[in-house]
């Protein structure tokens, strides 16, 4: 058991970040229209990319553990605090649908030139500060519904890990198929040409696809 290396240095952070940012940008996740297309069912990239990444990594970790190269509790596994984590997920889903990004993708938006991503990031700093100032009265909610430390799905359902992984692979495959059908029915998914045009071209797109006079207010 020689891994993980527990290296929290500058080079390790930069390496992980560069790969993370490059992959997110290549997926099209610098564009809030592509990202929010998930929730209008026009673009299933968020579901597809996220589930692919979760499964590739989860299967990789499973193999490393099965081969004995990594201990059972070697990596960080978050603990469930049911209400706070569900509520936080709800707020992030709502804010994502309104604002167009989540924290990681807003960094990609900034890096690829989106001015709205800069404003979104300022909003995040305000929201984070607001949380800190109401943290004490919220403490009860924040700690409510605590699950067992670092509980995983195989532990929750009492099933072997490979069974859970197989179920998730089937779930993802079904989601890919249904998603692609819905994308086609709605003229998606968004292409780089559609969402990476400069602003004047975006205005032309807007003129052609809808009456901009209804947009004010």
């Amino acid at each position, binding site marked *: 058991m020689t891994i993980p*290396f*527990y290296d929290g240095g500058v080079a390790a*952070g*930069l390496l*992980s*970040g560069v*790969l*993370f*940012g*490059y992959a*997110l*940008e*290549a997926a*099209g996740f*610098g564009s809030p229209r592509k990202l*929010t297309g998930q*929730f209008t069912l026009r673009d299933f990239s968020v579901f597809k*990319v*996220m589930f*692919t*990444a*979760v499964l590739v*990594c989860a299967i990789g*970790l499973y193999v490393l553990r099965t081969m004995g190269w990594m201990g059972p509790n070697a990596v*960080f596994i*978050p*603990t469930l605090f049911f209400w706070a*984590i569900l*509520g*936080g*997920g*709800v*707020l*992030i*889903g*709502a*804010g994502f*649908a309104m*604002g167009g*990004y989540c924290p*990681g993708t807003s960094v990609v938006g900034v*890096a*690829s*030139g989106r001015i709205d991503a800069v404003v979104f990031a300022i*909003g*995040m700093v305000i*929201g*984070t500060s*607001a949380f*800190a100032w109401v943290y004490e009265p919220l403490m009860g909610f924040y700690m409510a519904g605590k699950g067992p430390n*670092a*509980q*995983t*799905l195989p532990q929750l359902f009492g099933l072997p890990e490979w069974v859970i992984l197989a179920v998730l692979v089937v779930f993802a495959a079904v989601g890919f198929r249904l998603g692609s059908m819905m994308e086609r029915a709605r003229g998606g998914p968004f*292409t*780089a*040409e559609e969402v990476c045009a*400069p*602003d004047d071209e975006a205005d032309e797109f807007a003129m052609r696809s809808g009456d901009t006079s209804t*947009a004010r207010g």
Partner: protein
Amino acid sequence: MRDTPKPFWSPLAAGTVLGLALLLTFIVTGHGLGASGFVTRFAAQANDWVAPQATAENAYFGPFMKAGAPLLSWITWEVIGVLIGAWLGAKGAGRISVKVERGPRVSSGSRLGYALVGGALVGFGARLARGCTSGVGLSGGATLAVAGFVFLIGFFAAGFAVSFMMRRLWQ
């Protein structure tokens, strides 16, 4: 006329590379990827610039300030890496787009208003959930943590509900 931007990668290709990057992060550091942790540290620092006394006494920000230099952390280097990686990718593929990106029926002004409010909800939600889509959803999900999947259920349910209620924002 400028060059047409190169197409995005297929979701399967981008997801596979993202999954391998996440696996490499677990192998090197023992934890996954994140983003909102940086926002927290930046917010602690920003509050300290404005109101040092109150920030030091704040129950949430206080411990960050006590530990000293909240921005000197792995997550800061990681987020700088994300900026570099995303910029390199966008530059190389002709996908840099300096603009206010918005739905066809929304003015730039109201788009920025929604971005600010959405960002605030996300910032608050990420502190409540003890992480964001990257930290709890993606990285937690990859460890098969129950917390990661509870987060994802809330995230997708609210995303669909709010998007349905505010359809004219993006359509």
